[in-house]
């Protein structure tokens, strides 16, 4: 909200005035109202590990994060550029592997766990692999944005972008009069159009379904929400079966052919015949139909190789290699612990760095040096030494903060941003994002599984930013 000199950024002026005029108790009251509404609607997520099976609310913060249209434009262009390159990379990797031949990416990438040899030589409609990509972005200065990671498997969180907006409009209609906020509500329509567009050639009026691991999955609410918004069936593995090189769902009127599966279940569990044999969640034979072009999966199988934290370091090179453009968004400098020099440096500077598991996600298995105890650091040192290739390290970034309602009043808390890039006939984003906020003072971990909260993200649609025409263009794709 504030520039480095401490002044309120012009973008936040109206909000700043508004905040000055509402009391803490009014805001707390609104926050309580929001919590009640969220609980009644059942916008919950399930927590793994301790307290398993319990349903929890992700804390919602009533103060929005605001981005100027010009800032958004840059983020949006950068994210689209990145996803285009990543899709080209996946196609290349599973076909001619030119990028390896050119020496831009080492051939060791083929030993990565996310690489699926089953996909080698398989053609997917439109050569699109990551139909839905969540790009995690942080800000460290006025014009300094970094991509933290690309989520290309089954990124989640978009329901919070939509529900947080709905909640804000309900709680603070007056704020929406004061600001002209770019709308995000058409996201499900854009997604559905894209999914229909990636059916196999020749399919008329494709049947699209959303496949969920089931009601106990942490993101089940989102699966149900999106299926409802798009008006498509929410299926589990047990609802689908394979016959004659096609996928069918069991209905009360008999079997019905399925053309496109928006799957929110990991590769490993999707087909017990192809991957994990003990998976009860998948559909036996699905992958074989998929490889023969009998059904489209979104996202494709094998995208994990491109959002792996070790592959991440090559993304700027991919942008240059495939698009011949300079990357608009920067990577965070990253140390690969498989390299001897990097590893040595990291082990000497553990207290200053953030160390992550290459395959980890959800904020599990990471070390935030500056906020860790000596024991935690020493424990991690042992783990790194045992298997250096499993880790990367990054400098601790001075993440931007955003005013947030906490018990004592309004205080700055660290935030990140996850816009969702949709690829179908075109590559687009709706002007909004999941904004995650670390609720404890000084914390840099925003993951909801680690107690982070969410905020609504506003892209200001003011005339001087020329946002109006942009959002219209995006909604007609």
């Amino acid at each position, binding site marked *: 909200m504030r520039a480095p000199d401490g002044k309120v950024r012009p973008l936040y002026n109206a909000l700043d005035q508004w905040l000055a005029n509402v009391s803490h108790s009014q805001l707390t009251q609104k926050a309580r109202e929001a919590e009640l509404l969220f609980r*009644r*609607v*059942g916008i919950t997520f399930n927590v793994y590990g301790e307290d398993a099976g319990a349903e929890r609310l992700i804390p919602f913060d009533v103060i929005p994060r605001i981005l100027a249209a010009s800032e958004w434009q840059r983020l949006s262009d950068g994210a689209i550029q990145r996803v285009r390159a990543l899709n080209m990379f996946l196609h290349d990797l599973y076909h001619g592997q030119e990028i390896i031949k050119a020496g831009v990416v080492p051939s060791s990438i083929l030993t990565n766990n996310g690489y699926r040899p089953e996909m080698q030589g398989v053609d997917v409609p439109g050569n699109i692999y990551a139909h839905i990509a969540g790009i995690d972005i942080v800000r460290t200065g006025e014009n300094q944005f970094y991509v933290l990671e690309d989520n290309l498997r089954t990124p989640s969180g978009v329901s919070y972008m939509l529900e947080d907006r709905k909640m804000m409009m309900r709680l603070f209609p007056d704020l929406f009069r004061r600001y002209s906020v770019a709308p995000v509500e058409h996201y499900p329509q854009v997604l559905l159009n894209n999914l229909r567009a990636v059916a196999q050639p020749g399919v008329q009026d494709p049947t699209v379904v959303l496949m969920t691991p089931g009601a106990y999955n942490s993101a089940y609410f989102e699966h149900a929400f999106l*299926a*409802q918004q798009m008006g498509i*069936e929410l299926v589990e593995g047990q*609802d689908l079966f394979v016959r004659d090189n096609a996928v069918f769902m069991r209905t*009360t*009127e008999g079997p019905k052919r399925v053309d496109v599966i928006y799957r929110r279940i990991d590769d490993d569990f999707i087909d017990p015949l192809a991957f994990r044999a003990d998976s009860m969640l998948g559909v036996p034979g699905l992958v074989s139909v998929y490889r023969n072009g009998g059904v489209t999966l979104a996202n494709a199988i094998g995208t994990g190789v491109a959002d792996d934290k070790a592959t991440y370091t090559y993304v700027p090179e991919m942008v240059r290699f495939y698009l011949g453009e300079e990357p608009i968004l920067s990577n965070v400098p990253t140390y690969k612990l498989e390299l001897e020099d990097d590893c040595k440096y990291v082990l000497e500077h553990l207290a200053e760095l953030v160390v992550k598991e290459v395959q980890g996600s959800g904020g599990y298995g990471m070390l935030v040096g500056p906020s860790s105890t000596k024991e935690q650091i020493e424990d991690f040192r042992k783990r790194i030494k045992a298997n250096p290739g499993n880790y990367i390290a990054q400098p601790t970034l001075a993440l931007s903060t955003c005013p947030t309602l906490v018990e004592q009043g309004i205080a700055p808390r660290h935030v990140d941003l996850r816009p969702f890039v949709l690829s179908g006939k075109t590559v687009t984003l709706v002007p909004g994002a999941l904004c995650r906020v670390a609720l404890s003072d000084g914390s840099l971990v925003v993951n909801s599984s680690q107690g982070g909260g969410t905020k609504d993200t506003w892209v200001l649609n003011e005339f001087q930013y020329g946002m109006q025409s942009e959002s219209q263009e995006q909604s007609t794709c």
Partner: protein
Amino acid sequence: MLSRTADHLYWMARYIERAENMARVLDVTYRMSLVPHAAHSEEDLWMLPVRIVDDVEGFERDYGAYNATNVMRYMALDERNASSIFESLASARENARSVRVAMSSEMWESVNSLWLELQQRVRNGLNEGDYSEFCEWVKSRSHLFRGVTVGTMLRDDGYMFVRLGTFIERADNTARLLDAKYQQLYGPKSGGDEESDSSGDYYEWSSLLRSVSAMEAYQKVFRDTIDAGKVAELLILRDDMPRSLHTCLDEITPILEKICADRGMECMRQAGELHAKLHFGRMNVIADTGLHEFLQDFILLNNNLGVEIQKTFLNAPIR
């Protein structure tokens, strides 16, 4: 629609209906226990709800004595008792949660807030002063859910499976309630034509009528003193009494016709046969066979129909 979705909707509706009927039985039993009469002991009185759900063994093992506190605790909030209101509503909500996409958001909110409030009530505990209020609450939440369903749900296959679940369950519950009451009063040999002129019987039968919201209906229809045979007629054969067996089958048969289309299915035949028994049945014939036998037969056939529906639509085989 997806067979699994239809299955969840059907069972969600059944469990809510089941909870409502149990609340009706408990409420009336509790009210009965406040009226002093010598006809039967507290034990007889409180055994009825447990007998309706065929769970005498389970109750006696866990609680022993039949009295208001024990039976209310067992049938209302006991999580170990699969037939308790708590467990019924938990199952309803679990089913709803799996298919919230298939219903209107108002329906989901109605089931979900019902569940949240129930948990609050469990935490607060259930004291004697709360029995009636609790049963009223369950009934009114069930009314609300049904109203929201009729008022907001798209008239698609899902709607039909919700309705199907409601009426299969209601038919079963009404038959069980009537049967249990007859047995309690006259023993298993009763025929349905017993003389019932004692004032004790008046309280027995009027309470049964109240439990199915049929007291006023009885008076409107018969304009007569309350008599066991007429009560049975009202709850079995009358097609204008919303909780009667006949009315339930009146609802079930056309729904099955619609979802079976022209596929000539066994469940159509079964429903038709059952419907005919009620549509063309006469009370004196039923009394000759014995009311207990008639009701047991009905419960069995209704259950078979449920099994057939399950087999045909809900657990659809692969090929």
